[in-house]
């Protein structure tokens, strides 16, 4: 396929947004069509990058091994979500802005995947972030507004962190190409600063630990199709950003790598822990995403730490990077399917609902890594990457990862319990093929897409099915399922059992008062700045009084000058003065 088509990846959704604005009825259709070029390109990638030197500061679009799986994931998810949304929002009176924002977000999300230069990446990233605000706020109720506010505050804070990192990198690289930037960061004197900024800046998107707070708020309130792409693909943008900006395969930063790993593991456990304490399916899924992103963060950490030794440093890092990508694809499809299915439960009842819940178990198990799902392969790839990249960490990392799988299983069990429970919302209407169709397609994709050869290499894929790894993969699931059963049996099944529920956003509950306090302080300060001019008013008054006083003196003096004796005296004195001076000066 010609590389010129790459241009369509970000622009087709933009046109779709325009179409959605102008022809509201066909907003979903336009969005669907707009995703097609991406899917097509993922399947049939061009062999060259597209260079557009006249656009912006010089745009370069392309697809490489790292991006191709993600483009596939993104394209498919957006496409399916668009189809799903068409039916889901058929009766929504505010579907017009929704599809505008949907398409704009899509443009950004797809654009950043194919961006080869920093500016395009940043542009797409910003476009995605800001447009997603419209998706999160779509419901318009208090909850949505709160979620959107938290989201936008974090996004802006994130921009503030990302920008200096980009500037530092681009300045050192003297180029905007991401490859150059990465190389420059590898040798930058302020490397620690850049890496730190990147971690927190993009970590917000990737749901890294203390910055994850917006995710549990945003997912439940966003429209289901939006949640699906949000969790399925958009948060992967943070991951991709790490992969393309960090000096992976260029430098070995074991310290930072370890930090990434620790943060990742912490997120994995913390997400799982908090997730099981939730009582809404989408919130549980959100925490699951946090947890899963933690695992991908671990992969990035491995890539960061991988020593570029003479033999295999770069290769090792690349393996870890690929592991992250594979995991992302796997998780993206699975999570998309879970979200879309959750949305379906609201529209179904009785048997239909049972079927939905049963089918939902499939991607859930996949996430848990149960064989023979993509989860198994992804975990295997990650494990391999550990072995290749950081053999030294293997002996403590492997068990910890397995433990994380236990957590995942628990979390998903909790999800299934919650989703099977009484419907939170009254069903707006029966689900037709419009909802079922895309959902089933997503399920299928979740099951199969990751197996495509350009996603999971044949080697690890085959390896994943060896007995050892099967067993390795199976026991955490089993343990998790067992623990879940026990918990259910001994605590929740009791009459008058009161499950512990943590508010969505966990530490946000603690942060919000602090934030409000800061906000108030800021407002006060700013207001005080505004009244500062008034503070000098007294000076003006004093001056005025003085001027009046001086004016009085002035009048009197001028009047005195006017009297004849004074005038003649002045004449005489001047006469003497000039005479004396002239006599002295002669």
């Amino acid at each position, binding site marked *: 396929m010609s590389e010129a088509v790459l241009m369509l990846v970000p622009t087709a959704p933009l046109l779709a947004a325009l179409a959605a604005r102008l022809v509201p009825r066909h907003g979903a259709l336009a969005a669907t069509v707009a995703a097609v070029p991406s899917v097509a390109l993922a399947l049939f990638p061009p062999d060259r990058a597209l260079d557009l030197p006249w656009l912006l500061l010089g745009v370069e679009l392309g697809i490489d091994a790292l991006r191709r799986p993600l483009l596939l994931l993104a394209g498919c998810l957006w496409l399916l979500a668009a189809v799903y949304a068409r039916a889901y929002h058929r009766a929504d009176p505010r579907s017009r802005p929704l599809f505008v924002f949907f398409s704009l977000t899509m443009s950004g999300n797809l654009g950043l995947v194919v961006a080869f230069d920093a500016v395009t990446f940043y542009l797409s990233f910003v476009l995605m972030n800001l447009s997603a605000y419209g998706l999160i706020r779509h419901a318009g109720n208090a909850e949505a507004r709160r979620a959107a506010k938290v989201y936008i505050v974090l996004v802006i804070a994130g921009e*503030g962190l990302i920008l200096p990192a980009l*500037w530092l990198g681009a300045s050192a690289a003297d180029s905007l190409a991401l490859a150059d930037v990465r190389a420059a960061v590898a040798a930058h004197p302020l490397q620690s600063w850049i890496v730190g900024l990147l971690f927190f800046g993009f970590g917000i998107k990737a749901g890294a630990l203390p910055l994850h707070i917006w995710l549990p708020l945003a997912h439940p309130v966003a429209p289901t199709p939006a949640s699906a792409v949000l969790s399925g693909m958009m948060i992967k943008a943070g991951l991709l950003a790490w992969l393309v900006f960090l000096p992976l395969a260029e430098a070995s930063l074991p310290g930072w790598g370890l930090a990434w790993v620790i943060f990742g593991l912490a997120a994995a456990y913390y997400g799982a822990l908090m997730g099981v304490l939730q009582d809404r399916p989408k919130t549980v899924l959100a925490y699951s995403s946090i947890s899963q992103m933690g695992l991908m963060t671990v992969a990035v950490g491995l890539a960061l730490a991988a020593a570029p030794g003479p033999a295999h440093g770069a290769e090792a890092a690349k393996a870890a990077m690929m592991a992250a990508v594979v995991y992302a694809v796997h998780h993206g499809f699975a999570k998309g399917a879970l979200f879309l299915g959750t949305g379906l439960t609201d529209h179904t009842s009785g048997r239909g609902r049972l079927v939905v819940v049963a089918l939902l178990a499939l991607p859930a198990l996949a996430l848990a890594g149960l064989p023979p799902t993509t989860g198994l392969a992804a975990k295997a790839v990650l494990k391999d990457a550990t072995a290749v990249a950081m053999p030294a960490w293997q002996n403590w990392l492997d068990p910890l990862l397995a433990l994380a799988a236990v957590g995942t299983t628990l979390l998903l069990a909790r999800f299934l319990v919650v989703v099977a429970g009484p419907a939170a919302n009254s069903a707006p209407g029966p689900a037709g093929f419009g909802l079922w169709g895309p959902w089933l397609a997503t399920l299928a994709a979740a099951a199969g897409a990751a197996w495509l050869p350009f996603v999971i290499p044949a080697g690890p894929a085959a390896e994943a099915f060896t007995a050892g790894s099967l067993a390795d993969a199976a026991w955490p699931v089993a343990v998790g399922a067992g623990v879940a059963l026990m918990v259910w049996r001994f605590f929740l099944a009791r009459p008058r059992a009161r499950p512990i529920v943590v508010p969505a956003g966990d530490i946000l509950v603690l942060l919000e008062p602090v934030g409000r306090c800061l906000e108030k302080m800021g407002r006060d300060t700013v207001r005080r*700045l505004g009244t500062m001019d008034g503070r000098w008013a007294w000076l003006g008054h004093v001056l005025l009084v003085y001027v009046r006083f001086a004016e009085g003196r002035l009048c009197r003096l001028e009047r005195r000058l006017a009297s004849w004796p004074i005038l003649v005296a002045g004449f005489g004195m001047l006469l003497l003065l000039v005479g004396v001076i002239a006599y002295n000066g002669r």
Partner: protein
Amino acid sequence: MTALLATGGWLPVSVVLSSFLTGIFIFFLREEDVLMRSLLNLGGAVLKVALGILLLWGVAQGFVYTFVLPLGAGLDLILFADPLALQFVLLSAGLWLVTTVYAIAFLEGSPERSRFFGYFSLCVTASTGIALAGNLLTFVIFYEFLTLATYPLVVHHGTREALKAGRTYLIYTLGGGMLLFIGAVWLQGLIGPVVFGPVPALAETDLPRGVLIAIFWLIAGGLAVKAAMVPVHGWLPTAMVAPAPVSALLHAVAVVKAGAFGLFRLVYDVYGIALAGAPAMGGLLAMLASVTIVYGSLRAIAESDIKKRLAYSTVSQLSYIALGTALGGPLAAVGALAHLVHQGLMKITLFFCAGRLAETYDIHNVHELAGMGRRMPVTMTAFTVAALGMIGLPPVAGFVSKWYLALGGLQTGNDWVLAVLVLSSVLNAAYFLPPLYVAWFTAPPPEARLQRRILPGWVEWGLLVPPVITASLALVAGLLAALPISPLAWAELIVALRYFPVTGDGP
């Protein structure tokens, strides 16, 4: 055509005069001569743009345009067209054209229009004069001329508030003019005529350092007043009582840019960056600019009046130019010059929109914007584009200049600039996103509470088209920044040709 191009000094003179004569004619028109006045206005504006383009073309062909009018006693009035001058000329002329259309529609039916348009033309005359000034004296002349020509526009409404604002304006600008005057005369007295040219006037000076610094700050102080740098920014927000077209063209572009442009001339043409880059001069100026950037943003947050907020935003944004100028590297210079144009396009859009909102729905406050995204989608889209550009988001032009400023800061080793820019971006977001939020995401008040003023059709169009054009230009200037015709490319050309001939090829 070549004959036209080879007119020597008369081309820059005619650029200046094209609006001057128009203005003079307009003064003598009766209020009722709407058609005549509009034709004159538009004719003058179009002519000015055409002449500006002609000049540009001529310069590109290698013609030299210098007009010298000896004033006696060794003083000369010089108009010349170097690339930098052309950039400002074309910016002023182009935006004047757009604003004229807007103003004709905006002021339809209001009193004293002949006076208004007369002074309006004189203002543009002054700002083109500033642009084309070939020496310090000429610059000072037109700079002060601008002060005088703007005053009647500030007090145009004649209300007590307007007169008060006018007084504030005069106090500040005349004070600034005084500093500029002292500095300029001092400098001229020491080294003779200060001509803007390839070699900075002070390139090989043996003046004592203290004197150089004192003169620098006298001149810069005078210019800073118009550039609305803290602590001499106070006139700008109060001057917002002027009619919207005035705020749009003058307080976003012509007047305030005159200060910024002057700073650039001062640093690059008078002192030379090698000299002006010293901590006591450029360094301090950069600090001051940074303080202004942050302070202006903070004040903008506190204002809920739209025009006031925009005014403080201008205070903040203008200092980007000053900052880029003061930093002193090629990239920073490019950023400053690009921002000169970019900020103009964006801010004029915002003021156009604010004026249209005020005219149509009598909206003056951010909180009153509720539902305007639905009521006036095109206007609000233009507003949004410009606002996002102000925040510095791609692909609007503001991003490009901010990018270059940041890289310029790094290039010159001033890493702290990043912090300033980031802080400023965040603060910009803090005051530009709320209006956007209110406009797009909140429900409009019931129809009964919101009376749309019925305006003639052509007035509606006249108020709508200019912001759309400028917003599109702002967008295009960012999107196509890499094209050789973009403001950025022009800025790079200026810097490469004149100021950093060796290293000016940037990334």
